[in-house]
């Protein structure tokens, strides 16, 4: 067992955990924040995506004990049913899901993707490494490739993200 303190959605949390506990299991099983989903549990599907210190990661592929002092944001920290995050509202408006299981990961990833583009981080499809990347459908598709949707809501997800990007611009 190992003691760990971190902040989750702005709230300080202290846990006593088996060292084997992934960040995802700490969030779901110990803090009962079940928005982050366990899909493949191997970093392949993206359903567990959360933000740590502002960067999106697969919470299934990291140990909770490795996050002492970190600031973790889950889907519950982005918005609430009464006060949706703009990306959540856009997913609803554009029907960016069917079963909804991958959606929390898709939304956390989407929010981070727009921040990554703003920060000038290039992607595989960025034509010019010397220029700032733009929000295009190709950029969104490439950057969201770590989030799988077996229902196939991809085209609506791209539309939702594009709308939020345009509103931010």
């Amino acid at each position, binding site marked *: 067992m*190992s003691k760990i303190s971190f902040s989750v959605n702005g709230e300080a949390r202290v846990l006593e955990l*088996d*060292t*084997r506990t*992934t960040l995802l299991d700490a969030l779901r099983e110990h803090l009962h924040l079940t928005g982050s989903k366990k899909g493949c*549990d*191997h*970093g392949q599907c*993206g359903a567990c*995506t959360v933000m740590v210190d502002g*960067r*999106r*990661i*697969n919470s299934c*592929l*990291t*140990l909770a*004990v*490795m996050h002492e002092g970190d600031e973790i944001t889950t889907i519950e920290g982005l918005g609430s049913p009464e006060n949706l995050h703009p990306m959540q509202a856009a997913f609803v408006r554009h029907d960016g899901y069917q079963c909804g299981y991958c959606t929390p990961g898709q939304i956390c*990833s989407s929010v*981070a*993707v727009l921040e*990554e583009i703003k*920060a*000038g*981080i*290039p*992607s*595989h499809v*960025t034509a010019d*490494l*010397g220029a700032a990347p733009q929000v295009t459908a190709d950029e969104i*598709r*490439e*950057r*969201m*490739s*770590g*989030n799988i949707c077996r229902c196939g809501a991809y085209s609506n997800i791209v539309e939702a993200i594009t709308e939020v990007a345009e509103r931010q611009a």
Partner: protein
Amino acid sequence: MKPFTYERAASPAEAAAAVARTPGAKFIAGGTNLLDLMKLQIEAPTHLIDVNGLALDKIEPTAEGGLRIGALVRNTDLAADARVRRDYALLSRALLAGASGQLRNKATTAGNLLQRTRCPYFYDTNQPCNKRQPGSGCSAIGGFSRQLAVVGHSEACIATNPSDMAVAMRALDAVVETVKADGTTRAIPIAEFHRLPGDTPQIETALEPGELITAVVLPPPIGGTQIYRKVRDRASYAFALVSVAAVVQRDGRGRVALGGVAHKPWRVEAAEAELPRGARPAMAAILADARPTHENAFKVTLAERTLHAVLAEARG
């Protein structure tokens, strides 16, 4: 996962000494490959030494005019670094062709160099695999080998190295800096860092037990047109069937390293003299020793055609 104890490293030398003296101990940095393998009990360390707190996360110029990349620099940060994008575009391109945004945010420079093969038989614990269980045999030979090695392999193992980053580093003549358990340091040329499988495929690198990577050094920029072309079964987030990392100069000379074809990034310096004559003679020389399986002979043709496309793009 099997139970393990956990500690945070205080310094690189102490971390190296701790792993060397503790049977079953491993370093953990990004953890994206190690934890995946631990969940499958392919890796079962009894003790983890978390090196994330070590100050090895800077990219700094060297006195020679190159760059020293700290072992803990995340793949995202390395790919996005303005100096890397300008002077070592090949490396940015290779990094961005690999994994997903989430994984690149976690994965480190040193960890990328040390990632294990994605051979399906290495992952299937019900099957013999000399890399996972030395002496048990190789299920891939005669098995599903479409993704596996065409050159440099052995009777014991036909696995490939999955890294894109390492292929670019091989073309750029990077040097891996380490600290050993006794506190001494050394510099290992990337060409000598990864090993061919031979009869010990479980030994993948030149690292000694406990030896910790502290940085990767890039020599001064060599200019040229730098292209990383990766061919895979889908457009994003997949391992390479074949990848070509090329630096092509105006006179047609250059360097080429291949990914997806061998147990290590594959580069044959002597073959590069053929580059000005075109992709066919160059690839014939680079893959002169190729011995593909019944399922992956297409990689030899694919490598030549990919190089052809790269050279055409370089000519503009």
